[in-house]
């Protein structure tokens, strides 16, 4: 509490000392600056952390040359990216080619503005905050298309169309799995959602069966939405030479990366707010540590999970990706809505808990049985590698 009050005091002193006409702009800037700088710093830290962790997973050290343990690697990367030549293809559509990375970054950063960082720390308090979040997230698809189309490159266009198809398909389970939380909280405003999970860890929504399932579905859809491995088909380096980013170099390429990471942070922050209690500490006695710290801790846990998943799983094929979205994620999200409804209708007690768990388990079992019995899910034999031709 004291931390948030301190921040608000500082801001109000600064704003009140400014001339009358400048106050609204100054207030907006003072709200935006800490968020943007915090996530910019986090971006630098996470790029290094990701490379270190991937290295450890793959029996390597990771970057360890620049500074002790390589902690200045992000600085070196930044200098390298900034001093690189910015090449624009001759036939490219110059203005759109220039606007695309900026638009992508904009959409990613706008999402951060509605996340509640503390009880009083919300940049914009929208009553329909989560709708805003998903609306600006939807504009990211357009930015990806602009990047791919303006490059005048077949690979870039193919990659961007794949990216759009993937993002549109995964947006549906993403929104459906967040709807169950909105049903339980009875509001569309993100700070109300966070407020409804106050108390100990047990009142977080992930502690209910529908919440757990919703969280897992939401995280998987998030992975696809921000093009992280194993859903990184859009930028598949080995098959599509980085998709819509093919024709970008230097600083614009760095902006693409920044946008991707900021989108990931925004999505993780949203996951933490929806399912993991937002800025609330896991135990009430830990409330002396300020709320933003808890939100960032949860965010970091999710980011580490994403890096771990990236280090583990191979890339999905495009048709498998679509099949997974439409044949597993979508039905599971709809069934999860039903089980949330049962939980709410039965008075949010243990009876509802049990019924909800039962519905989800039965649906999961049935779905996975059906999917794994399909002919294209059987073990593949590779004609040339292990077939009779090979034997002969």
């Amino acid at each position, binding site marked *: 509490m004291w931390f948030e009050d301190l921040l608000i005091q500082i801001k109000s002193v600064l704003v009140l000392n400014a001339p009358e006409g400048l106050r609204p702009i100054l207030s907006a800037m003072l709200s935006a600056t800490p968020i943007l700088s915090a996530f910019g710093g986090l971006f630098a830290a996470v790029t290094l952390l990701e490379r270190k*962790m991937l290295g*450890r*997973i*793959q*029996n*390597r*050290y990771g970057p*360890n040359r620049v500074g002790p343990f390589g902690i200045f690697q992000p600085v070196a990367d930044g200098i390298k990216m900034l001093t690189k030549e910015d090449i624009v293809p001759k036939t490219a559509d110059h203005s759109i080619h220039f606007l695309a990375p900026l638009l992508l970054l904009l959409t990613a950063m706008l999402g951060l503005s509605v996340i509640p960082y503390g009880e009083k720390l919300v940049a914009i308090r929208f009553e329909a905050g989560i709708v805003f979040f998903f609306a600006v997230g939807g504009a990211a698809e357009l930015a990806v298309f602009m990047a791919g189309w303006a490059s005048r490159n077949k690979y870039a266009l193919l990659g961007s169309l794949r990216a759009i198809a993937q993002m549109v398909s995964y947006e549906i389970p993403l929104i459906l799995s967040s709807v169950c939380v909105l049903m339980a909280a009875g509001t569309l405003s993100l700070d109300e959602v966070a407020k409804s999970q106050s108390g100990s860890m047990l009142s977080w929504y992930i502690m209910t069966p529908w919440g757990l399932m919703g969280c897992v579905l939401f995280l998987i859809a998030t992975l696809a939405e921000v093009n992280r491995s194993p859903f990184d088909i859009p930028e598949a380096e080995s098959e599509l030479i980085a998709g819509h980013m093919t024709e970008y170099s230097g600083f614009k390429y760095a902006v693409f990366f920044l946008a991707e990471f900021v989108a990931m942070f925004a999505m993780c922050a949203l996951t933490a707010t929806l399912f993991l209690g937002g800025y609330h500490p896991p135990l009430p006695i830990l409330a002396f540590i300020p709320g933003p710290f808890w939100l960032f801790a949860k965010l970091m846990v999710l980011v580490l999970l994403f890096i*771990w*998943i990236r*280090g*583990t*799983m191979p890339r999905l094929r495009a048709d498998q990706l679509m099949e997974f979205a439409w044949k*597993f994620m979508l039905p599971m999200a709809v069934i999860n809505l039903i089980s949330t409804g049962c939980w709410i209708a039965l008075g949010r007690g243990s009876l509802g808990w049990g019924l909800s768990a039962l519905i989800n388990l039965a649906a*999961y*079992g049935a*779905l*996975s049985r059906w*999917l*794994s019995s399909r002919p294209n899910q059987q073990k593949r034999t590779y004609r040339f590698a292990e077939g009779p031709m090979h034997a002969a």
Partner: protein
Amino acid sequence: MIGKGILKGMMETARNLTGSFHDPERLTTVSYPEEKIPAKENARNFPFLVYDGDDWESGLRCVSCQICEKECPPQCIYIEKDTQKKADFLGKLQFQPKVFDIDVSVCMGCQICVEVCPFESIRMDRDFEYAKSDRFEGLLLHKEQLAKSNKYYHQIHPTEATETDAIREGKRQDHLAKERAKAEKLAQAKEAASKSQSKEPNKE
């Protein structure tokens, strides 16, 4: 059940991640310039010229037959014959190379020069730290850089060097045997000649 394989894989990578901090088995990478993994005996990349003895110029095995120059697929070898002949290890008079250059920026390490060399002169090195600031002159290796002693060859590829020595020893023995046979023949012929000479007066 969908997801079982994913969880299994995640456990494996988690074991790798935590194990890399205490288990050397799970962190097989070394920090290269500070520590190096000892090279395997059969490691090889670029060719070098072997010489016998201590003086590289006189002990060079190469006789500038130029077979390697012709066989080299990327044509990275350049040889110029010397004008005078010198005796080789068998005592035969052979041309020595005046210029022997290998452009390691072009060389692809195919080892064909080694296969075709009839004089066991060119062999594969395992030194890989060739980075230079000048990519044209710095990577064009001359005779004096290429020449390395037989002792060094024994150090890097002991088995192969022993085999090569055996071959050369065999050649020398053959040569000696041939010489001996020649000498014997010569002696016989001489003897015969002298006998016939000595007989001749007897005949008459």
